[in-house]
């Protein structure tokens, strides 16, 4: 049975801030500027699933340009050098880090999946019977980035099919 989750926007925003400080903007010069627009576009996304005491997904989505910039920051390389594989790997790790920290705020007994990466818009993602319950939406150096949480309904037996 899934419990009511108590991870809200401010918790997600704090995790995002830590990720930026640690990897994407260690100098503190280009933070994620909130837009509060949950419908902002994306071109790529990654996700991790959480099962157990809470069932759902944590999704990181952004434009390709933002993903490229994230990979360049992670891998300490020039933007032009970033490959699709670099972007995919970085997106996966970003979802993993945020998802892991979300899991830590859930009741004991939650399991985190390995990350899934899709170099396609978040709108193409299919999370059966899941509903977005919170998110952080912003612009990073003029490019859209979002981190959202989707809660699955445990009542439907088709879930996860």
């Amino acid at each position: 049975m899934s419990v009511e989750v108590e991870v809200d926007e401010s918790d997600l925003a704090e995790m995002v801030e830590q990720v930026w400080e640690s990897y994407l903007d260690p100098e503190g010069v280009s933070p994620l500027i909130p837009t509060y627009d949950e419908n902002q576009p994306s071109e790529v996304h990654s996700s991790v699933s959480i099962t157990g005491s809470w069932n759902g997904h944590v999704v990181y989505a952004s434009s390709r340009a933002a993903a490229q910039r994230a990979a360049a920051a992670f891998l300490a390389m020039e933007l032009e050098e970033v490959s699709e594989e670099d972007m995919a790997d970085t997106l996966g790790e970003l979802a993993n880090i945020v998802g892991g920290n979300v899991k830590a705020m859930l009741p004991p007994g939650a399991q985190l999946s390995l990350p899934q990466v899709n170099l396609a818009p978040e709108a193409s993602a299919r999370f059966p019977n899941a509903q977005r319950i919170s998110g952080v939406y912003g612009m990073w150096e003029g490019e859209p980035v979002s981190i959202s949480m989707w809660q699955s309904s445990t009542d439907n037996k088709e879930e996860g099919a």
Partner: protein
Amino acid sequence: MTPMRAMVIDDSRAMRMILKRIVTKLNFEAVEAGDGKEAMDLLADMTEVPELALIDWNMPNMNGLEFVTKVRADPRLREMTLVMVTTESEQSQIVRALAAGAHEYVIKPFTEGAMIEKLALLGLVPTGANS
């Protein structure tokens, strides 16, 4: 002087790169592995055991906790300093890792400074290496 060696074990290449950058800055020679099994295979072929291993928890094939347990059960590897570097941040998980034989625990995301501080506490940062 022979440089110290560090093994960086994470299924994310991006995270391996970050960790490799940090340990290289501290004058370690870095060896990478994508999971615990690959790390054990590499260790089996090494004549000299690395002084340090930075280990992710959630990995395919052999996870970080299993790796720590195997290393601790092998007398040849007992001198290795094991540091878990993971998103698993629940108290119970930290206790499990330390009980299995990890020396330190670093929660992702971490800053370079925080990681160096942890390694310094373990006596693995040569003076002036991080300047």
